[in-house]
């Protein structure tokens, strides 16, 4: 029998704590049954038990910090599917995040990551990049780009003619009914790529008697910066979002993206040295809701009477929404209540689509394998519409339908709900 090794001294205390948690991994392999990267590659290094084992060897000092080691950590989607089936509940996603931070501490933030985070800090720039890509696609110039870049360019949907905020600025939001004052945070992707979703959210909120307040600029939720190790920028963005909605004195803050709301919840412990800000952050976190949770659990769902005309609808679970926020029943409740629509469950609805933040851009080959399975599961439902509560997922799913020729359109459940009034 193996003697247990120990973690090297001088590691960060959080890593040390989670290292001893991984003592309980008996390598039973339950995680292999639910891990999307393992299913896609069938490689042990791509399973949670493999990642735990590698992390242990690294922390014990018997594996050096290599390019391959960094890559294998980066190939974890962070979807938390393993946590649900792990008998001793080892937080593999947290372990991987801490290891990634440890690598950043030692090697700094890589250049491609820095560029990406810069773009995220300036959503206006992001919007122009999408338009430029779109122009290139239409003009056929994309084909002149290197193959790798072409693939990534294809992941973006067509850019709308106007951003959400451009529309709202031209035609300010009318008051709703004064029942509740709701701050609506559209998020970068809704603004740049899905303005019609933003309008649908406002319409639905107003149908529920709410006054809606929208910020006049998009500020990133900061999740990419937190994951990428730019903690100062993360705090700056958080502060900006908190201050805006605080100034508006809203009852709730809703988003239509599981990832953004999940990111909001993480504002809770980032202002340790600023008591006043920490108190504001606490209130902000308590008021933050996903739109679907807000409608069904707080506002009381009101559905219109217009028929959807006999469509079949299915639902894909965003990991942040489902495992991060436990919002899973609410979207189904909305979809089941749509007049003239049939809701069908898709197999493995709660499996990650491979989008996972910047995962699909960084690791297109693995992401594609995961997406292929998702598209197969989608086709088995014969649904005409697939819905999801996160714009990252929506982008990835619509890329999948184009790439694999699946005749299905991608919507947010709220967009369908808005059509019933």
């Amino acid at each position: 029998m193996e003697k247990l090794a120990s973690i090297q001294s001088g590691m960060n205390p959080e890593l040390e704590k989670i290292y001893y948690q991984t003592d309980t991994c008996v390598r039973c392999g339950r995680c292999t049954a639910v891990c999307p990267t393992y299913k896609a590659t069938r490689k042990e290094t791509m399973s949670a038990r493999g990642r735990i084992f590698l992390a242990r060897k690294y922390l014990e000092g018997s594996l050096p910090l290599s390019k391959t080691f960094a890559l294998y950590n980066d190939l974890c989607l962070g979807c938390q599917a393993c946590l649900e089936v792990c008998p001793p509940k080892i937080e593999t996603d947290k372990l991987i995040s801490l290891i990634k931070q440890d690598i950043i501490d030692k090697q700094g933030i890589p250049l491609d990551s820095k560029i990406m985070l810069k773009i995220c800090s300036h959503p206006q720039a992001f919007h122009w990049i999408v338009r430029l890509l779109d122009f290139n696609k239409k003009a056929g110039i994309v084909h002149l780009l290197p193959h790798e870049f072409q693939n990534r360019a294809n992941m973006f949907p067509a850019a709308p003619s106007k951003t959400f905020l451009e529309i709202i600025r031209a035609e300010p939001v009318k008051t709703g009914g004064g029942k509740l004052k709701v701050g609506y945070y559209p998020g970068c992707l809704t603004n740049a790529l899905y303005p019609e979703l933003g309008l649908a959210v406002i319409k639905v909120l107003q149908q529920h008697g709410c006054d809606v307040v929208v910020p006049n600029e998009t500020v990133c939720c900061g999740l990419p910066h937190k994951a990428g190790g730019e903690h100062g920028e993360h705090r700056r963005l958080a502060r900006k979002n908190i201050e805006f909605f605080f100034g508006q004195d809203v009852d709730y803050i809703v988003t239509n993206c599981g990832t953004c709301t999940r990111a909001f919840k993480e504002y809770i412990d980032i202002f340790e040295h600023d008591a006043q800000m920490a108190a504001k952050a606490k209130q902000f976190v308590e008021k933050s809701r996903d739109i679907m949770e807000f409608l069904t659990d707080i506002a009381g769902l009101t559905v219109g009477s217009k028929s959807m005309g006999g469509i079949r609808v299915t639902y894909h679970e965003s990991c942040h929404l489902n495992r991060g926020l436990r919002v899973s029943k609410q979207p189904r409740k909305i979809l089941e209540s749509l007049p003239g629509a049939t809701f069908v469950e898709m197999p493995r609805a709660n499996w990650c689509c491979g989008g996972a933040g910047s995962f699909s851009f960084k690791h297109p080959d693995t992401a594609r394998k995961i997406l292929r399975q998702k598209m197969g599961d989608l086709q088995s439902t014969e649904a005409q519409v697939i819905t999801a509560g996160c714009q990252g997922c929506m982008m990835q799913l619509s890329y999948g339908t184009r790439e694999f020729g699946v005749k299905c359109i991608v919507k947010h459940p709220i967009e369908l709900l808005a059509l019933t009034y």
Partner: protein
Amino acid sequence: MSTRLVKELTSLLGKDKVLYRPEDLTCYSYDCSNYQHMPDAVVTADCRQDVVSAMTVAAKLKTPVVPRGSATNNCGGTIPIQGGIVLDTLSLNKILEIDKENLTVTCQPGIITVDLQTAVEKEGLFYPPDPQGLNMSSIGGNVAMDAGGPRAVKYGVTRNYVLGLEVVLADGQVLRTGGKNTKDVSGYNLTQLFVGSEGTLGVFTEMTLKLLPQPEARRTLICAFDDIADASRTVTKIIDHKIVPSMLELLDRISVDLIQRFMDAGYPSDVEAVLLIEVDGSLTDVDKQIDVVSRLCLECNAREIKIAKNAAEAEVIWAGRKSGFAALSAYKPTVLPEDAVVPRNKLPDMMAKVQAISKKYDMLLPTFGHAGDGNVHPHICFDPRNKEEAEKVPKIKDEIYQAALSLGGSISGEHGIGLAKRHLIPMQHRELNLGLMRGIKAVFDPDNILNPGKAF
């Protein structure tokens, strides 16, 4: 040596199918046991030719080869204890044919057990062997280890379903044995020789398995006892009344408590033992069986009987049993599921002996298992960082098997020998038997390159 090995493998298999970086090798150094050893290379085969190529190189260089599926065995069966090649067959995972007329399925070794079961169920057919890791384990691994499961009491183990095999031998030759015939007495039965051989005789690339029609109905009953001896007695009594349940599982007090702490399976509290019983057959038949079983449980002083009202209720009851190992892993960092088997009527004696060992070493030995076939799993749960606890483990383990052997039992019912129980083999088998086994091994693998140091 290992550079040459990687070079030769890569020249035949291409770069993508040969792994050699330390990060990759590390992840093929373990299975679900407490042993570890690094291989020198990993081959991820996705066709028969890949397996042939790997074996050709191995034979040439006399390098050990460890065939591997999902590595969910808990006896060290897939640890490359002497280095060499780990030959991963998980990507050989196609179902080649479901033959509804002959009631067979032909598939590749890498398919996951539950996926095979689901596929045949869609055709109204039934592949009964149900190792508790069936959501993760591969069929190839099941055949290599002769995996069992709760249904063994009525339906037997993996061995009883293997009709034919395609095997790549140690020198790279491809052997086909058996087929779709339900009867076949021509020559020695080589097919069955490979079942349970733990990868020491050849590498599977295809298997033909027997199927059954799905039973029409199933009923589940859960029954609580204040005395574990009464529960054990009930098991023999049921069989004595010519009823063979499709599952007949016994859980002791501590197992019941730990499972309930892990998930609400609806098990009663403050009981010494619980029996979980499933009967299957035609609709009228299951009702009759469940009546007789209930009566027998009461005759043996059962305190409480609950019959599941529907499939959903039954599912929860069995989910509790399935989560047994998980529940124990949540209790202590390391769990060694021991696997002793005794003749069915010796079950009460075996349970008593396990309890005595638990008392002697002052360690809890949560025990559950397939009581219907005399197979019990006392679990040694301990913290490897606790020296006092860890030192007791090998002693407890050996005493459990001495107890089983003294009752005419065996040191393994369904988990296999691997590395974990090799030292116990001479206690069960005489030199005459072992000599014959060594002889067989030498015929198939004269250079001893196939999973060396395992099985016996």
